[in-house]
């Protein structure tokens, strides 16, 4: 509580300084046209506000449509009226400070939040037009349409081969030929085939961290999903492994719609086509990555992506 009030107390004091700095040194140019909108204040006070969506997004075909989506953990609301369309076949990055609800939103897409008993949600979400949250949605079928990769690599305690074909195994596929084929295709897709093709029988846990994460990606694409959810997939990896995963995201783009949560601004700007900036459970600004990073409409977004805040 004390921290909260201190932060609230600091912000009005900081903002005029920043504003003064901008207006003094850069009297002309696009930045001068963006005064602080007072949006954070409004959000903190709980006042209604409008998400800023760039025009480029209006023409895109949406893979996932989210409409006024709310989510509560028990009595605490975590997502407030999120409305966004995640474009088909592109990489969309979710950025924002810790605790802003990026991961919660990502996990809402394949209903992983169902595993937490206290979660309630409202609003609507559709995957290619099919409702995600309606009563007669089969969660298992839904999850089979969406692959997911987690923050920490989580290969199962079984062989590399079995790890990859796990989505097929749970479907009851037993045909050896099919399994072999899918295993190779998925491992190639995840750029891991050359490294592990001779030791498919070894435990998935015997791989290095970066290899484990690519194994998880192979597992996520083995079930031939429409969409991939990546929840900070590189946060537990070293820079080289991170680079490989980022390259891989580039290769997977187009084949799958990708939604990625990241804390790393460079990663978001390198890998994604579209970026959504979230703050305290609200979607603040959503637009093409280039615009968000170089020419955001909102002063708050600019402050965040340039590291002046957050």
């Amino acid at each position: 509580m004390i921290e909260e009030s201190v932060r609230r107390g600091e912000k009005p004091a900081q903002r005029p300084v920043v504003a003064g700095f901008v207006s003094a040194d850069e009297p002309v140019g696009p930045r001068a046209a963006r005064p602080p909108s007072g949006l954070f204040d409004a959000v903190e006070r709980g006042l209604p506000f409008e998400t800023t969506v760039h025009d480029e997004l209006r023409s895109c075909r949406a893979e996932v449509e989210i409409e006024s989506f709310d989510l509560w953990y028990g009595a605490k609301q975590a997502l407030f009226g999120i409305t966004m369309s995640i474009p088909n076949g592109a990489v969309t990055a979710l950025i924002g400070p810790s605790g802003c609800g990026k991961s919660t939103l990502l996990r809402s897409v394949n209903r992983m939040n169902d595993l937490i008993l206290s979660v309630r949600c409202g609003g609507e979400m559709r995957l290619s037009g099919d409702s995600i949250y309606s009563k007669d949605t089969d969660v298992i079928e839904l999850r089979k349409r969406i692959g997911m990769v987690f923050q920490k690599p989580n290969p199962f305690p079984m062989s590399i081969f079995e790890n990859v074909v796990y989505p097929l195994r749970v479907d009851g596929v037993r045909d050896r030929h099919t399994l072999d084929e899918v295993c190779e295709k998925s491992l190639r897709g995840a750029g891991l085939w050359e490294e592990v093709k001779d030791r498919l029988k070894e435990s998935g846990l015997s791989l290095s961290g970066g290899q484990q994460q690519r194994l998880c990606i192979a597992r996520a694409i083995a079930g031939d999903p429409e969409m991939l959810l990546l929840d900070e997939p590189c946060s537990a990896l070293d820079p080289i492994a991170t680079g490989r995963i980022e390259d891989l995201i580039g290769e997977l783009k187009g084949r799958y719609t990708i939604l990625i949560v990241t804390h790393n601004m460079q990663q978001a700007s390198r890998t994604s086509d579209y970026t959504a900036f979230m703050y305290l459970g609200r979607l603040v600004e959503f637009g093409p990555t280039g615009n968000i990073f170089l020419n955001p409409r909102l002063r708050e977004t600019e402050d965040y992506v340039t590291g002046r805040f957050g």
Partner: protein
Amino acid sequence: MTPLFAHGETMVWLTGGALALCLLMIVGLVVLVIGFGGGTFWPAPVVRVETLDGSVCMGEVTRDEGYRPERSLLEGVPADALDRTWAAIREGGGEAKRRLVRTGNFDLEGTHFRWIADYAVKDETRPEWALVIERLSWGRFYGEPKAFLVDGKPVAEAPADVWRAFEERHAEVRDRYEERRRLEREEIGDINRKIEEARLELRRTEIRRGKDSPEWKRQQAETERSAAELNAAFRAVRERIDALNRENARYELALVTAKGAEKTIPLAEVVRAYPSNRLGFGEKLGVYVARWGEYIWDEPREANSEGGVFPAIFGTVAMTLIMAVFVVPFGVLAALYLREYARAGPIVSVVRIAINNLAGVPSIVFGVFGLGFFCYIIGGGIDGLFYGERLPNPTFGTGGLLWASLTLALLTLPVVIVATEEALAAVPRSMREGSFACGASKWQTIRRIVLPRAMPGIMTGTILAIARGAGEVAPLMLVGAVKLAPELPVDGHFPFVHAERSFMHLGFHIYDLGFQSQNSEAAKPMVYTTTLLLIGIILVLNFVAVAVRTRLRRRLEGVLPQARTHA
């Protein structure tokens, strides 16, 4: 200077000291058991002692101790020995020494052991040809060979000749004896069983159709006819047994005790004999190993104080395994529901507390419950439904291997549930999420991810349950463990496994030997050997379980067996 406690040194000492104390107690117990249990079967020299009061005895020294002699005890000691005695007692700080000699020859003297004070010894020798004879009845015999008799006539008189004749003949006599036992057990057992079956068949008809009904009469005639056949068969077997007995009765060993009494022992009565004082180390080792072999593979004799404990080993292992077969699936399923399916709330908490409390219920209470519920209610119900013709003799309606195993399964259930729950809780959330995200259902996730991952922990619970169950005695006294079981629960007769039979158990055997035996001095070393054996068996069972667990754990840690062979 920094205070001592700031360094934490004191805690190192405290924790290290606690560990050292635990180790000391455990090692002390193990050393004690191994020391006493391991030495029991080593052949001791036979001493012949002549005491000051003129009596003579011969036997093995089993132990010695110091004691404070009463003044009145020393009155009978001759004057010249008295000074020597007092000097010895003074030297020993007022204590005199005495030895317990196993003198055997119970049939002649009415005692197995005799205390001999050191000061009362007039003369002590180790007669070269003193024989230790283990007999089928009356316990051990100590004596010197006098003659080897065939058909009542001596064929050898010198000790060496007698011994040679004995060694020549003993094996074949024992073979005949074993053959006789086999005939009695198998052939006569078969005949008795057929007679019993015919009787039960008749009784069944009587219950179903009523006495004097035509079916009953036909059955009765049938029974009588088969009884006549069986009686003839019985007589034939009996004759073969008699022939074997007659042949065996021809050979006898005549011995003379230290007191000069003569005794003739039929060779068939002799289980093992050896001239203890003539044996070299190798021969002693032979006797030692042979005794262990007999101990592990034979049935008990002489109110369990002699012979082997094979039925008890078998009963213990069978009971423990059956218990594990019941308790592990039940415990794991219950824990799965509690941890994976049940919605956390007050009811689940109460259930969990109840399970933990169940672990603290005295084991005898489980025994009483097992007797009342399993034996009387369920067993009695089974008897009434399926074994009506045998009543009033109970079949399942009394203590038995199955009921004992179930009782112990109930007793060890909390251990398995708690250990399994902890193992399930330790499965990382990320594993489950990964599985769910692949579109796996809850059960698929449990079966393919959670259970394999929790298996080492479940094995730990199983190990604890086995260790606790195998060593438990109190409840068994009520639900089926007996002092002497006539038959093993597994044999060659349909349905081969007779889980309703009462059984012997090593833990109960220890209690019986140590506290219920008439010949407690002779039984005492057997208590140690039985303890050693029980600890050994639990060790083996645990070792197997630990090996399985290590294998599973290694696989989880990412080193599959194949991977190791590659590397």
